[in-house]
Structure formats: structure tokens, C-alpha cells
């Protein structure tokens, strides 16, 4: 019996190896301007296998 379903997510530990290209959007630039959340930012690193 399956007790746990794991949702596919980006592996953060792996992203430490080659993340940080910096091409992604500035966090509060697009809509809020009064808070910081980075969860809704899209990764723009085209050279990295995520």
C-alpha cells in the first residue's frame, strides 16, 4: 500500500552545484513591489539540467 506520494520538485541540493546564473527576474519587480517572495520566480538558466 502506498502511504506517501511525492510530488516532483526541483532538487535544491543539486541546484547548489551549478545554479546562480542570475538571469532570473528580480523578485519584487513584476507585480508586488512591497514584499519579497522568490517561490514564484521562474528559473532562466537554459544551460542547466534541472
Amino acid at each position, binding site marked *: 500500500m502506498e*502511504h506517501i506520494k511525492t510530488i516532483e520538485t526541483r532538487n535544491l541540493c543539486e541546484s547548489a552545484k551549478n*545554479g546562480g546564473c542570475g538571469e532570473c527576474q*528580480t523578485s519584487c519587480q513584476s507585480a508586488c513591489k512591497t514584499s519579497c517572495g522568490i517561490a514564484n520566480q521562474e528559473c532562466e538558466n537554459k544551460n542547466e539540467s534541472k
Partner: protein
Amino acid sequence: MIHQYKLGGYNIVLDVCSGSIHVVDEVAFDIIAMFEENTREDIIKAMCDKYADREDISPADIEECYAQVESLKDSGKLFAPDTFEPMADKLKAKTAGVIKALCIHIAHTCNLNCSYCFASQGKYHGDRAMMSFEVGKRALDFLVENSGSRRNLEVDFFGGEPLMNFEVVKQMVEYARSIEKEKGKNFRFTLTTNGLLIDDDVIDFANKEMSNVVLSLDGRKEIHDRYRVDYAGNGSWERIVPKFRKLVEARGGKNYYMRGTFTHANPDFLKDIQQMLDLGFSELSMEPVVCAPGDKEELTQEDLPVVMEQYEKLAELMLDRDRQGKPFTFYHYMIDLTGGPCIYKRISGCGSGTEYMAVTPWGDLYPCHQFVGEDKFKLGDIWQGVTNTDIQQEFASCNVYARPDCHDCWAKLYCSGGCAANAYHSTGKVTGVYKYGCELFRKRMECAIMVAIARAFGDNK
């Protein structure tokens, strides 16, 4: 570190450091809660006792479930250790000295007189001013010169009301387009406007040149017109809504946000979101007000449970609208679980004062738009560059691990330590935290992840 919660009929477990998300049954939920502090025998016994009268849960099921939890831990998807702290400074330093985004204060003046404006009616506690093309051009050159190998450069036309200086906006965009190819850059422009001056020219221009348009609308007419009034005290809702509809209709699917503010006057902001939907808008953002402590607009402790409930109902509404084939976007519930930010971004945050700066109409640089007008935060100017290196260093060292209050927070890698301006205005330190905002943020993340789970499972169909 893990975070467990129940929402929308799901038992959800977040493994903070691996970024894993698990949806579990009730037995697994209980086992995970006990896992780190108890022995296997104690956990199995506790579960057998708890579920003794449940025919559908046998001791064998419980042992099997325990093994599945253990296996996830062994594979690094549960109870993953926090190995990021020692590399936090190194990760943030990866982009040291590179600027990729500017908030251009094209007009320190406004044709509305909103009492809740964090920018004091666009003047930022100073005098009214308009940016000249010469200053704007130099700001763009400054950005290009300091952007290193970054290709995507963001420029937000902000105010005050940017359309009060529309000619300079157009000139700056024309100039940027004339140099971007030769410089190997891609400018992405955003326009943030209250809508009063939108006309056909603005619509054509914005839809051609702006990657994103942020349109300020607080939702219901009576809520919007309470604060968003002109200098004669007249509400602006009737005048702007037709203009916003026309602009969005002509936008042809390009990015935009209807961006509202909720205050103590409307903690029941879901009604305002519903109003935006009824008007035909689908890309929505609704932000808690940022104001000085004690202002009448400030959200109170009594408002908090109302706001929390609104966030949950908003998540339900999103899934209902999916089922009806009328989906909408809520900015703070956007979460890309597979293609979201890397750990570098999650640790370093918004980049204010380092990758991102605000430029005043006269060319001064500040860490971000929310610090403009606070003299001690002036970084330098667009001709000399950053000269106040002490302040810049304060922002450069500002990562999620530099904030003691964030140490034990499960949401730290979703918010990256939060907004430095909110922290400063709330605690007097950029490395502090705005605790009220943290509570709202955590709730938003719980809801956003629940919506993402429902969508991943097809439960929104």
C-alpha cells in the same frame, strides 16, 4: 527541517532543504511527526495504539509505512540536513558587482492622492520632480555598464505616476532598443500605473514595448475609491476601469497584473479579487498594505484570522475556477515546483542594493524603491556609481542565513528572508524580519503548494 500541515483535504509534508513535497496518508503524517525524536519501536507502538480500532489499518500497514518514511529519508527527500548555510555567502557573492535591474523613478509626482501610499503621494517625502531624458539615458547606460555578462535586464518605470512623464518613458525605451543588440542585452520593461492617463497611444506603446504592465486597482468600487482619490477627493474607479479593460483586451495575452492593495478597511479582500474576475481580469495580485505603524490603514491582529481565511478561500476559488474552465493567476500563488528558483536565488533574495537598485529623478541610487527618500540609504549616483560601500555591503551580506529570526522557519527557502525594506521599517534593521508579513507569507505558501498539489493530481478537473 520539515513542515507538516493539512489543507484542502491533503496531508502535506514539506522537506525544506531538499525542496521535496509529499502528500501522505494519516498514518504516515503521524509517523513523520514522531520520526526524529523517537525510536522505531516507540513509533510503531504509538501508531498501533492510536489506530487499534481501525479495521483498515493493520500493524503490518504501519510497519510498511514506517519503512517508506525511512526510505525517503535515506534517499535525501525527507529530513535532509541543511548544508546550505556554509555556502550562503559564496552563493550570494556569485553575482557581486553585477546590476541587472533598475526601478526608474520617472516621476516623483502623482495625479492621485492615495493616503495609504508608501511613497507619500509619489514624492517620497521630498519635492515633486520629473526625470529628464538625459538622466534616464545615463541610467540605462549605467545599467548596461554594470551588468557584466547578464543578458536580461529589467527596467521598471515607476513613480509616482510614470505616465505623467510619458514622453521620457518613450525616449528611454527608444534609446534602450537602439543599443541592446550591439551591447548583447535584452531589456524587459515594466510600467506600473494608476491608469488615469491611459489612452490609445499608451495602450499601443505599452503593448508593443512593455514585457509587463502593472495596473493598480483595489477591487470593489467602494474599497478602491476609499483611498484612491484625486486631489479633489473624487474616486478614480469609474475613470480607470474602462481604460484597464481596453488595455488588457488589446494586450493579446502579454503579461499584466491587476495589482490591488488591501488594508484594515478590507481584510475580506477575496470580494475584491472576485470583483476583478467579474470585470474580466485574470492576472491578479493583491498585496497587504505597507504603511507606518499606527496608520489607520494598517492591518491589525484582529484582521489576521480574517486574512488567513481569505487566503484559504482564495485557493479553493482557484481550483473551482479551474474546474469551470475559467482559471486565473494570483501572483503569490504562482509556484513552479520543477522549474522554480535554484538554491542561490532562494538564499540571496531580491537582490536589493546589489543586483537591483532604484534611480531617483535626479540620478541618485538607492537599494530599492522603498528606501528612496531615506538619506542614509543613498548608495551613490548613476555617474559616480556606488560610493556608499558600507550600506551596499550591508545589503550584500543580507541573505536568509544572516537573519537570526529565519533560522528555524520552514518557509525560509521560499521567501529568502523577506523584504529588507519591510524589515527595516518594522525593526530598524535590514536583517530583521517583519513578523506580521511572515505570518501572511507562510499562509500564502501553504495555500500555493496545496493548489499546486491539487493540480498535479488532476483534482482541479
